[in-house]
């Protein structure tokens, strides 16, 4: 992660949700005890994803410049970190807020964009190919698909609609 404007104590420079997550009562709750990392399956399995470090950078006032290769995308939102945190920090919420900023700049790994594209195309995150065959195999009929026009209308003006790919 590279940094943008590392002014000390600059939590307040972040607007909106990210700041509220870092600094819920005017005091940053995280004291870097590393229990989030110890509980994290992605940290365990990859050796490169490090939620504690993401939070440290934010506390130091560095708004991460998220790239598609950034390990922050390895967070699977399992909430193990939040169960482990002695201070009640919304660690996964912070990982999401950071990635939301990245996606606003059009940055996300292919698999994420793929999910968004499928969602915008059908209202479900599912490849259309092979559904009928899978259902026939167990004796189930065609499934009813959601009203995707309504979903697209609901998402009008969102980042997801603008940057999620597809038509």
């Amino acid at each position, binding site marked *: 992660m590279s940094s943008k404007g590392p002014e000390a104590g600059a939590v307040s420079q972040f607007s909106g949700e990210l700041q509220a997550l870092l600094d819920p009562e005017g005091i940053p709750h995280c004291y870097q005890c590393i229990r989030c990392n110890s509980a994290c399956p992605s940290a365990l399995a990859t050796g490169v994803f490090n939620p504690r470090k993401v939070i440290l950078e934010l506390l130091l006032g560095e708004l991460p410049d998220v790239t598609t290769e950034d390990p922050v995308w390895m967070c699977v939102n399992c909430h193990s970190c939040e169960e482990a945190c002695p201070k009640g920090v919304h660690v996964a919420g912070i990982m999401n807020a950071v990635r939301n900023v990245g996606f606003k700049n059009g940055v996300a790994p292919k698999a*994420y964009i793929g999910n968004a594209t499928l*969602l915008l195309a059908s209202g479900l995150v599912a490849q259309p190919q092979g559904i009928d065959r899978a259902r026939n*195999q167990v004796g189930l009929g065609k*499934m009813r698909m959601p009203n995707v026009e309504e*979903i697209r209308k609901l998402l009008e003006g969102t980042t997801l609609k603008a940057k999620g790919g597809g038509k």
Partner: protein
Amino acid sequence: MPRRYALMLGCLIPTRLPQIELSVRKVFPLLDVELDDSFDFACCPNSPYIKPLDKEAWLAMAARNLSLVEEAGLTLTTPCPGCSNTLLEAKHELDHDKELRARINERLKTIDKEYKGKTKVRHMLQVLVEDIGLKKVGAVVKDPVDLKVAAHYGCHLLKPSKVMGFEEPFTAHSLEDLVKVVGGTPVEYENRDMCCGLVLGSTHQDGSLELAHRKLTTVASAGGEALLVCCPTCFLQFDTGQMRAAKKYNADYSVPILYFSQLLGLAAGLTDKDMGLNAHRTKTTSVTNAVKKA
């Protein structure tokens, strides 16, 4: 009087794992549960991919799904913990932040919907153990399943615990209780509470298989003859992913995967075809052989 619920199947179950859909449709009516599938649910949307991209869109779609059930006054139930997690987390935020709710309702107004906060959400395992109760569940067991079964709860059924409001993550016991009710023996094993790792596969394939390998190895070495799950993501990782992990690690785990309602259905006298076992990738013959026909 049957209990009625609004059934939300999610994306993965009806499209990739219809055996899970089949099993809940066959098993829950045996317990006097009526599943109303007439609602126009879309993707919940999932928290591993859509929430990290755009939380506002995630909230809007979740609020739409919740709003669909409000008029019917039913409790929403789903076989997918991804769905129950998204809906309960979104509900938690919308019910505790008036400004946020007003903003999301502005958006919902464009499609003539409104979120009022009335819909209750329960995963189907929670319906089974809390609403119906395992005593009543035990009454439908005809053919005991004499099998050593390891339970895997996954992440989103229980976490974050203060929002999910079911069992505590590290002391959960409903799946083991169900194993006992159907005549099997629960198996204790290391790593019970570890994530399945499927989602990690989209950014780190090796890490994902490593998690599957650890889990399946400990289940097999603890004597587990089947792995019981309550989540389609975990099901995919351990059923289809088991073949990939076996190849990479040159291992033979031979651990059949069962969704919890499939295990109950077999014990209730339904056939392996009724439970869609023919659609599994990892062989389930050891499971069907363990069913003691009355």
